[in-house]
């Protein structure tokens, strides 16, 4: 049956429905007028042709169910209300990836309003006869078809019909329009505006629309803990806390925040979020899951964040540091990002297959981390929802298809191109120092050379790199050795050489002299290329490739960081917001596409995105603005006067269970155990025996977990060795990802296994013992020890109830361990550090138990 025939036949059937409906309702006018004010689609219904009456009739059935939802005649926001429905329910057949035999596409106004042979899906001239509306309401020939997995809800049908009634206009999906700053009107107005944090303008504007206000500000102690955990991942020390509480200046909190932003623990904490996103791991991830050498990349991320490297450079160096003119060690190390995909060295694996797989992985990681778009669909076919044609996917992939490392890792630590890099932060610091000296020295030498008295080849000098100049200056046989800096050059050259001997190798990106040809792969199968080789290119829905930019990863980075790119700044700032406030403004941080969530505060998101760019991609500036906002400083207690469990109005402060790493770090820190050393190869704290062995291939060099000794047991959790097929259980039990794939939003679960881990794991016991020891050594009586314990973990003293509960626990434990000192000694012997023999074992054991309990409580493991 042709479409028109089917349509005619359906209309005949519909007439019967209409007649039946007429009988039921008495008169059409009554039926119609009853509905008119509830459903504006009928307003257009002056002609009242057969099909239109059907709408009324069928609609009445819907309205019975939909009555609860308030009907509205307000203008419908296509991007927010309609596009998600079309995308989720219709595009699978009528979207960008439409089969050739389907003539109708609904992903553009032009397509939706085109003539389908005497009728249109959307008929702007006569909306009520729009086929789209007829079909979604039709009972005998419905769309989506009855057998479709996804059906429209009645509310969605109503929305679609209303939208068509209002003209069925399309607009671009919000995330593909470059952001602009649009400030909401502030009721207060006037000069107060200058003193209000812009974030609060947006939040207040929406809150006031609902007649609510900000929650009261959190207690200063709570706020100090919150800001410190948010920015640095550790609570404030007792001294820092006291200093902040003593500070009576109006900007005491802002000063406190600045101190936090300048701590080196800031970069360590913020780096974790990035490392989750880019799937940083210390092993290959597949097959043998052997060691790989790329940890200098991790250390570079930490120091870049501490140095507040502008985020556009941060991105550019990672994607294309090797393609910058005369790249330095840092730029090269940063390209470890390109090498971060899991790799295999499985015997028998087909090289070409893994070449494709590795490239898919890198392309899709870029999608999730920077574009905010899941691209995986487009590997096999044009994206079902988002405007990503399959060809564009492969064009994007082509940027990565020319890197020179082999597709299979041969199970080697340093496969493919590597560079020598500092092996920990102290080496990095020394290296930077020497490089500063080098810069000054070259500068002085260049000045001296401009003096005509020195005879040397100035052209050769100008062309040389700094290191070549240094060698020339240090070489006693070179003409440059006559310069006054010769001795200093000799010394510096030796120092650099000796430092570099301690360097390690790290995986980097390097392009082949001739790029590999990239083809579209049919269904994503490596051995089914189609068509001519593609030139590297970008997703056109997100703006054009910058004019004159090179068609390589550097050009790609320029596209991503250009002010007109619609998503990159939004995606980045949304994740910064998420890590600060607990949830993103877009609650699907990995997906800003048509299937993603609409922002809770779109104008705020856009404002922040533009501010990020205008500030010179200044992360610390953005974080400072966020944590000093009134929005952040509110009490996090749930409010009786606001029905907003998901905090979509941001009407209370952030509160969530802390990340695995933070939970462990707090324990180490409170027991004075945290080793301040930064960077270096991953560390291996205590781990139950046999966990790696139980999974590993016998030939794997990570089959046996050999735990560390000494200080390495107590390093920050950021540095815990990340074996991708079996990360440390204290990490995964608390929702840390495996880093085989990108993770931009961790789940936050509560499980019984977490409880067991908090109270029984070796390192937790050792931390608690050291914390107990600290309390006993630093305070002399029970109440001041309790005070310090609570102050360390909750940044405040105990309430009366808390003190009573814990003093009761202490007494029980004292009694029990005094009666059985062997048990006390057994408990105190857990962990490598010897117990302090000067302390009474029963008392120490009791305090250990008390500390262990508070460390496991929601006072310690929750942000509030």
């Amino acid at each position: 049956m042709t479409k028109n025939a089917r349509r005619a036949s359906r209309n005949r059937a519909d007439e019967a429905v209409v007649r039946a409906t007429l009988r039921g309702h008495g008169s059409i006018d009554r039926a119609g007028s009853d509905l008119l004010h509830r459903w504006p689609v009928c307003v257009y219904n002056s002609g009242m042709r057969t099909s239109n009456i059907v709408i009324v009739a069928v609609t009445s059935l819907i309205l019975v169910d939909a009555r609860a939802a308030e009907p509205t005649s307000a203008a419908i926001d296509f991007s927010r209300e309609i596009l998600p429905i079309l995308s989720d329910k219709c595009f699978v057949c009528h979207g960008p990836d439409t089969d050739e035999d389907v003539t109708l596409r609904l992903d553009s106004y032009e397509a939706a309003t085109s003539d389908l042979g005497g009728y249109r899906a959307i008929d702007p001239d006569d909306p009520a006869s729009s086929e789209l509306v007829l079909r979604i309401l039709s009972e005998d020939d419905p769309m989506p078809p009855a057998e479709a997995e996804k059906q429209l809800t009645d509310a969605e049908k109503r929305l679609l019909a209303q939208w068509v009634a209002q003209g069925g206009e399309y607009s671009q999906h919000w995330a593909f329009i470059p952001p602009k700053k649009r400030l909401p009107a502030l009721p207060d107005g006037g000069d107060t505006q200058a003193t209000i944090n812009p974030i609060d303008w947006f939040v207040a504007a929406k809150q006031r629309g609902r007649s609510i206000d900000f929650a009261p500000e959190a207690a200063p102690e709570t706020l100090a803990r919150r800001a410190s955990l948010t920015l640095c991942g550790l609570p404030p020390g007792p001294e820092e806390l006291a200093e902040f509480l003593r500070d009576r200046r109006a900007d005491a909190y802002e000063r406190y925040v600045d101190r936090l932003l300048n701590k080196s623990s800031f970069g360590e904490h913020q780096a974790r979020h990035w490392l989750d996103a880019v799937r940083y791991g210390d092993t290959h991830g597949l097959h043998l899951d052997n060691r790989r050498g790329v940890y200098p990349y991790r250390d570079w991320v930490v120091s870049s964040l501490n140095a507040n490297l502008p985020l556009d450079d941060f991105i550019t160096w990672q994607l294309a540091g090797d393609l910058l003119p005369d790249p330095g060690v840092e730029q090269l190390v940063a390209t470890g990002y390109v090498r971060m995909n899991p790799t295999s060295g499985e015997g028998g694996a087909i090289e070409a297959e893994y070449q494709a797989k590795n490239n898919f992985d890198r392309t899709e990681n870029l999608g999730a981390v920077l574009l905010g778009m899941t691209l995986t669909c487009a590997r096999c076919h044009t994206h079902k929802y988002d405007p990503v044609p399959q060809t564009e996917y492969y064009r994007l992939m082509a940027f990565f298809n020319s890197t020179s490392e082999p597709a299979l890792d041969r199970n080697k630590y340093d496969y493919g191109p590597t560079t020598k890099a500092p092996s920990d932060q102290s080496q990095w610091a020394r290296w930077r120092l020497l490089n500063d000296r080098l810069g000054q020295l070259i500068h002085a030498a260049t000045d001296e050379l401009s003096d005509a008295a020195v005879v040397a080849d100035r052209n050769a000098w100008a062309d040389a790199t700094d290191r070549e100049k240094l060698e020339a200056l240090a070489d006693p046989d070179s003409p440059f050795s006559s310069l006054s800096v010769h001795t200093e050059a000799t010394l510096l050259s030796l120092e650099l050489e000796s430092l570099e001997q301690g360097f390690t190798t790290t995986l980097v990106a390097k392009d082949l002299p001739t790029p590999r040809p990239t083809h579209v792969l049919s269904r994503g199968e490596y051995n089914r290329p189609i068509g001519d080789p593609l030139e590297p290119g970008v997703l056109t829905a997100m703006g054009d490739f910058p004019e004159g930019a090179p068609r390589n990863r550097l050009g790609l980075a320029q596209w991503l960081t250009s002010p007109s790119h619609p998503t990159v700044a939004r995606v980045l700032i949304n994740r910064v917001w998420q890590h600060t406030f607990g949830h993103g403004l877009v609650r699907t941080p990995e997906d800003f596409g048509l299937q993603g969530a609409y922002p809770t505060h779109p104008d705020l998101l856009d404002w922040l995105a533009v501010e990020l760019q205008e500030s010179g991609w200044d992360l610390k500036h953005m974080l400072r603005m966020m944590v000093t906002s009134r929005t952040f400083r509110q009490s996090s207690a749930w409010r009786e006067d606001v029905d907003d469990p998901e905090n979509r109005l941001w009407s209370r402060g952030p509160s969530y269970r802390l990340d695995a790493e933070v939970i462990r770090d707090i324990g180490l820190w409170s027991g004075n155990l945290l080793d301040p050393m930064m960077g270096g190869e991953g560390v291996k704290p205590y781990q139950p025996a046999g966990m790696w062995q139980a999974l590993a291939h016998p030939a794997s060099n990570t089959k046996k977990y050999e735990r560390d000794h000494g200080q390495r047991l107590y390093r920050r959790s950021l540095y815990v060795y990340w074996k991708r097929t079996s990360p440390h259980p204290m990490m995964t039990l608390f929702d840390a990802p495996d880093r085989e794939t990108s993770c931009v939003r961790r789940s936050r679960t509560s499980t019984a296994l977490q409880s067991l881990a908090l109270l029984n794991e070796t390192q937790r016991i050792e931390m608690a013992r050291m914390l107990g020891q600290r309390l006993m050594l630093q305070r002399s009586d029970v109440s001041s020890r309790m005070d310090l314990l609570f102050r360390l973990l909750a940044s405040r003293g105990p309430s009366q109830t808390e003190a009573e509960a814990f003093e009761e626990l202490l007494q029980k434990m004292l009694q029990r361990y005094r009666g059985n000192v062997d048990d006390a000694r057994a408990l105190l012997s857990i962990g490598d550090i010897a117990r302090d023999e000067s302390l009474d074992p029963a008392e120490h054991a009791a305090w250990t138990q008390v500390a262990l309990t508070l460390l496991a409580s929601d006072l310690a493991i929750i942000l509030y």
Partner: protein
Amino acid sequence: MNFLETLHRQQLATTRRQLFGRTALGLGTASMAGLLGDELSAAGTNASTLGGGLHHLPKAKRVIYLFMSGGPSQHDLWDYKPKLADMFGEQLPAEVRDGQRITGMTANQKSGLPLCPSKYKFTKHDNNQDGVWISELLPHTAKVARELCVVHSTFTEAINHDPAVTYIQTGSQIAGRPSLGAWLSYGLGSMNEDLPHYVVMHAHSKYAEQSLFNRLWGPGFLPADHQGMLLRSGGDPVLYLSNPPGVTSSDRRDQLDALAAINQEQHRHFGNPEILARIKQHEMAYRMQTSVPELMDFSSESESTFELYGEEARTPGTFAACCLNARRLAERGVRNIQIFHRGWDAHNRLPTEHESQCKDIDQGCAALVHDLRQRGMLDDTLVIWGGEFGRTVYCQGNLTRENYGRDHHPRCFTVWMAGGGVKAGITYGRTDDYGYNIVNADGSPMIPRPEKEHWTPGTMHIHDLNATILHLLGIDHRKLTYRYQGRDFRLTDVDGHVMHDLIA
């Protein structure tokens, strides 16, 4: 209603909304069983009215998956090819291979692709049809032939271990998707308050020569509490289960009481319902400290149990002990049990390795099926046995009558199921005389190409297997979805066909 109750209700309402929001139509109620615990799901939701199922009445309440990692040889265990006996050492005909890609290990070997008949004797055992051929390597399993539904036409596309194991256990060759077990946990939740609902064991093997990965029982993008809990044979059976030395159960009780007092105070102040959820988990942990040791203590098992499972079952970590444990877990209401046994990747000395491997597993498999039957539990317990792919009919390495190796073969392999609503005592699917390609019932060639919703009768793609497992447990594989990265993902991706031919 006081403030706390209001908050608590708000939270439940939220969770409902989130569930409805992120899952396909009508799924919310069901998955709530997994997220909010039985107490809530009992309050008039689908899961309770559907006898524990999610979309329809389930045939099985629980599943025990015996996963043979590495790829057991169907040629030497299940798929009897008598005509090969006369073709020893001949080259595999090109038309049989039909352009099939083969791994780098045998693609270029000097000996080519010499045919390699099995050295093992096959016997036909009675089942509920005209019998099933089983090799002498599985004498115990042969005794439960009447219970088995043996599928010779299982197939996959992956040809290397890592992608193939990841494919069959997570529905995708690329890491990152939730495992089968995590999907079941998400969809069905728990039947037991004292034990986690998804338990994974690793059985010992002398030839454990492939890796396993956390992702095979991992949650992927599902909330992390849906990951499988490893029940270990050495040290604490559950990570961090035991109190440290010098800490008794009564000490722990005191600690938990103080902890609850603090947390309740915290909740009074902040009203965050997650705090209450955490108090519940601390209590469950405390109960597990009793229930897990009780589970692992076989002293209450009778002598006849050890006659059935073999003396090896007394040694923790053996496959037999894992099977006995699986039965004990099933008795305690654990829904979802997996045993991983490695060592099946027989590239070079298949006879030595497979003899050892079969000895490891044979009695345990048979005992488990028999034991579940005699306890009246087999009808609602689905048992599955199989690996990630099969092995080649041609030899890898040196071929002699006594020793040979076999490479990876994705085009057909044998999987069996028992109980849980599958037809007992049948075989399904046929392969050609080479055991290379799946053929139609009349022996004519058939090469399935699983594109779009395509399914070829007589075959069982691994997506079909997974769809069938879900179906038997009361889940429609097309409806159990989770929104991630803008897409509603499911275990079977865009494929999967419920194997109604196999269902009783």
